[in-house]
């Protein structure tokens, strides 16, 4: 994988099993976000392949962006809308009816511990609460893969602990990959992929 003259990955090979929480760790600039983009099909490798095996017997297919739900660094939410509305869009994007999406959204909010914040506007939530809402949104989307890009980057320790607890809940439900520097989140992961720059 190259950006201009700069090679980001050279001879990189890794596999990420389903129903596993993997932490991508490494210093800034080591390519964590770029790897997530490659795995999600948002970027194409200059050489080599990325294959997604939907079951153990198939030969694999190229990654498809619509299979991935993202939890962003910072807060990408509809600020003026309620937390529930934000989670609902995940379920509605999956083609559910409104009633079904409502039930799914509330269920996922319950799972990550923000059900009591359902009617609060996203812009009135704390950073930690908002990140958990984003996780609930990703879960409600029903996508089999969740990528989280440094979700604790702007959180204090208490909020990060809450997020780590959410990770514990998520890790056996689907394929989750978290790019992080945070030791708390790393400890929640079943696997860790360490990345480094040439200098390190």
């Amino acid at each position, binding site marked *: 994988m190259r950006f201009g003259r700069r090679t980001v990955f050279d001879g990189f090979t890794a596999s990420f099993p389903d129903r596993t929480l993997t932490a991508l760790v490494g210093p800034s600039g080591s390519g964590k976000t770029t790897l997530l983009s490659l795995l999600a099909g948002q970027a194409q490798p200059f050489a080599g392949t990325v294959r997604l095996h939907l079951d153990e017997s198939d030969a694999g297919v190229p990654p498809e962006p*619509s299979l991935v739900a993202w939890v*962003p660094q910072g807060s990408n939410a*509809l600020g003026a809308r309620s937390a529930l509305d*934000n989670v609902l869009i*995940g379920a*509605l*994007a999956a083609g559910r009816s409104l009633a079904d999406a409502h039930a799914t959204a509330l269920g996922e909010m319950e799972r990550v511990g923000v059900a009591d914040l359902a009617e609060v506007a996203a812009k009135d939530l704390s950073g930690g609460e908002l990140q958990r809402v984003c996780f609930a949104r*990703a879960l*409600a989307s029903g*996508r089999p893969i969740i990528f989280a890009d440094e979700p604790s980057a702007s959180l204090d320790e208490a909020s990060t602990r809450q997020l780590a607890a959410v990770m514990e809940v998520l890790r056996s439900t689907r394929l989750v990959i978290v790019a992080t520097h945070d030791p708390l989140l790393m400890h929640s992961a079943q696997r860790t992929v360490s990345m480094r720059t040439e200098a390190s």
Partner: protein
Amino acid sequence: MSPGGWRLGYLAREVNRTLFNPRSRSSALLFLAVALGVGAVALPAVESQGFRSQLAEQQAAGRNIVVFGSRDTQHPVAIDRASCDSLTAVPGVPRSGLTELEGMDDFVQLGPNVSVLGSTSSLFPDLRDGVLLVGSALHPPVAAEFTLVAANGPLYRARVNRVEPTGLNSNSAVVVPLAPDIRSASSCIAVLDAYSNANQLLPVLRARLHTSGGDMVASLASNPTIDPVTVFLNRPGQYVALLLGLLGGLATGMITRSRSSEFAAYRMSGTTPPAAALLLAMQHLQIAALFAASSCAAVIVLRGALAAPLSAALSCLAGAATWLLAALVVTVDLPLRNVLALAKDR
């Protein structure tokens, strides 16, 4: 229809819940659409008022009144009465008829030496009611209809004539019906409607007149250097709806771009680029439709003040289409962008 998983109705619900949320930045676009929609009609209404008052002023001064007469008073022309009366058959000519000064007379209510003008009911329609028409400048009695007493005895039913444009020469005269046996006169007047082009109609009218005797000339009672109709038809203000639509569309696009990180929430939750594009298009369409609706409502309210209400409404619809197009152009790349790049775009 299920664009990329979303049901169409739920996409519309998303647009409504975002736009009609008072805490949303996008809700400001609704106020903008209403304000610009009303403005797109209010400005032409103000222009129309100015145009109408200028036109009325020039009409009163004799604009669009064509006078046919003799080139040489020593060899007067005789214009056929029927041909002059029938100029009203030409589109854009509501009134026409012969006029002839029948002399001066003294009246009890009006005083001595009042001009008496003979004419036809095709030029002065009130003559059909069998009354004489007393010019308003003669200070007639206040009553609309009264008995006019000639100094030498006869009584006439008379009516105060409305203020006529300069060129008809009737405001300081008593207009009487031209005697039926008079078949021709040396002066024929045609009153064109305000929107007719006198210079274009003049040769048409001239060709329809039957004359004998001397040569005939045609002249305009007033020939202003600036024609308000031409000025109005070429006014830059007719493009104001398009301009406001363009500005509104650009503002919509820019505000949408400024919340692209919020828009990323849809893409991060599995909303496909086609569904995201449809969501944006529906949002833009709703705002542009509000612009069209508010401007059409303004056209209905201000229809009396607009010189051309239908034209104003059509301009506003074109403005709404411009709004939609401009907003789409400014945001066309948003649904296609990399999700992570979109999320970090603040």
